[in-house]
């Protein structure tokens, strides 16, 4: 399988390569390195162009995209209901961009489309790194905090816990990220359990891996669902 990644930093990309490999059970061929976006909403802005570039100019099978949720609405199973689209949920938005962009593309390089792998790190990828290390950190804890109006931690606090400073250098950030994902890769199911935003990415990747070809319709994500981006 040929995988491209669109991420927000070299540290994120380094960690995602390990996590994608762990989910697939073997290292895929990472066809393009260094596709980068400048955070949200830039990811959603450049995503159509990135998809078209990969579709027409490369033989990439799947594009993995992971963004931080920040303070946005967290994707829940309710959002997967048929016809549902939450305009403030980044998962819903990125899936919609994939649908809208790929549905009009002609076949190229022997495949119909570049397939989708979307993950949302709630509230930031540092929370994933703390999975299994800090039981207080999980997507459920964040949602619970959002509902109570009292977030259990802030993004700077998560960075401090992972990097030991809120101003890590890039090599230090990459080093810490790789150290944590090296721990997580032995059992990515724990990460999937605590962070459904990662589980969604893992599901996308496993589905592509086991059944190459376009992903069949999922509730609320099928092509033609009446959301504002279709």
């Amino acid at each position, binding site marked *: 399988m040929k995988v491209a990644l669109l991420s927000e930093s070299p540290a994120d990309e380094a960690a995602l390569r390990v996590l994608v490999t762990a989910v697939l059970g073997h290292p895929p061929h990472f066809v393009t390195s260094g596709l*980068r976006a400048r955070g949200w909403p*830039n990811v959603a802005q450049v995503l159509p162009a990135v998809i078209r570039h990969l579709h027409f100019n490369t033989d990439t099978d799947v594009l993995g995209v992971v963004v931080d949720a920040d303070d946005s609405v967290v994707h829940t199973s309710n959002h997967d209901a048929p016809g549902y689209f939450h305009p403030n949920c980044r998962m819903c938005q990125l899936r919609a961009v994939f649908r809208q962009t790929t549905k009009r593309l002609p076949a190229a390089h022997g495949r119909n489309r570049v397939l989708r792998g979307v993950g949302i790190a709630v509230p930031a990828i540092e929370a994933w790194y703390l999975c299994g290390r800090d039981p207080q950190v999980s997507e459920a804890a964040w949602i619970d905090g959002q509902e109570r109006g009292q977030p259990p931690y802030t993004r700077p606090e998560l*960075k401090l816990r992972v990097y030991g*400073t809120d*101003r890590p*250098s890039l090599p230090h950030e990459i080093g810490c990220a790789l150290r944590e994902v090296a721990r997580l890769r032995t059992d990515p199911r724990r990460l999937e359990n605590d962070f459904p935003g990662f589980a969604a990415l893992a599901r996308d990747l496993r589905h592509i891996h086991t059944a190459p070809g376009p992903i069949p319709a999922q509730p609320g994500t099928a092509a033609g669902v009446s959301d504002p981006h279709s």
Partner: protein
Amino acid sequence: MIASVAFRNFRALRATSVALGPFNIVIGPNGSGKTSLIEVLLRLGELARHATAGAPPVPAADAPASARHHRDAAPEIGFVLASQPGVVVRMIRGADRRRDHVVLDPPDGHLWSEIQPLLADTRGYVLDHAAMARTAPRRGGMHLNSDGGNLAAVLAGMRQRSPASFSALTAEMLRITPEFHSLELAEHADGRVEFGLRLADDGLVPAAEMSQGMLYLLAMLALAFDPNPPRLLCIEDVDRGIHPRMLREVRDALYRLSHPQASGLRRAPVQVIATTHSPYFLDLFREHPEEVILSQKQGRAARFERLSDRPDLPELLREGSLGDMWYSGILGGVPDDA
């Protein structure tokens, strides 16, 4: 550390003040006072090296109106140090309209001699790639000149006096630019030194043939890995010549100076004042908006504002990146349309 600077009648800075932290990135349109801020900090450093603090010549009460007018219209800049919050170091233009004077308010000769060396330990940079690419006399390499013109000598001096710092600088440069294999220095018979970067395939790129970005990056690392950095470092246009994706490395190099503990270093922090016109560089301060100073131009006057003082900043950051918000004009700090 200088905690704040207040301006009166200084060029476009008619009546404004700015609080400073360990790291400060100043953004704003041309002519909005960014360079003026740096100039007065460097001027204070100069005065601290040479001048004694005292009372400026004040026109007598029966002096001509023109002299009294001059006193009222004369530029005055007040500096407050974090360590001496109750004292203002005033820089006042004298009646001859050419010389500046330093006055401590309240007067304290003992304190002045105490803070003089701290204020004097200041360096300012407007790096020039053409100057940096030239060979330099081996002897002039203690500190980087304001245009970076003695970069070769500084590297040679660092290699000799502080091999560990030179090794760390080299390792960092090669990490950032993996196409290179080593940083090399050569001393000529005339006592001048030059540097070059050897490519992984063994070809040598001498400084004169290096890209501007490489030279700026190397100079930035020479500052960041200086074993004897100043207490205050000002640098203009930090993004100059650097690819947007490399700007993170520039920010990290400057953080190494201002927040040494974050890099595992045990030395006093260097207060950094830097300017930029790059929205991409600004994007890197989303987590630390308190480090961003906006200089706002209103007609012929300008004033400073801390980005973190904006109450609507969290909402704005949900809508887009800091750089995009700045470019859009929502944050201010943009030129007037023609």
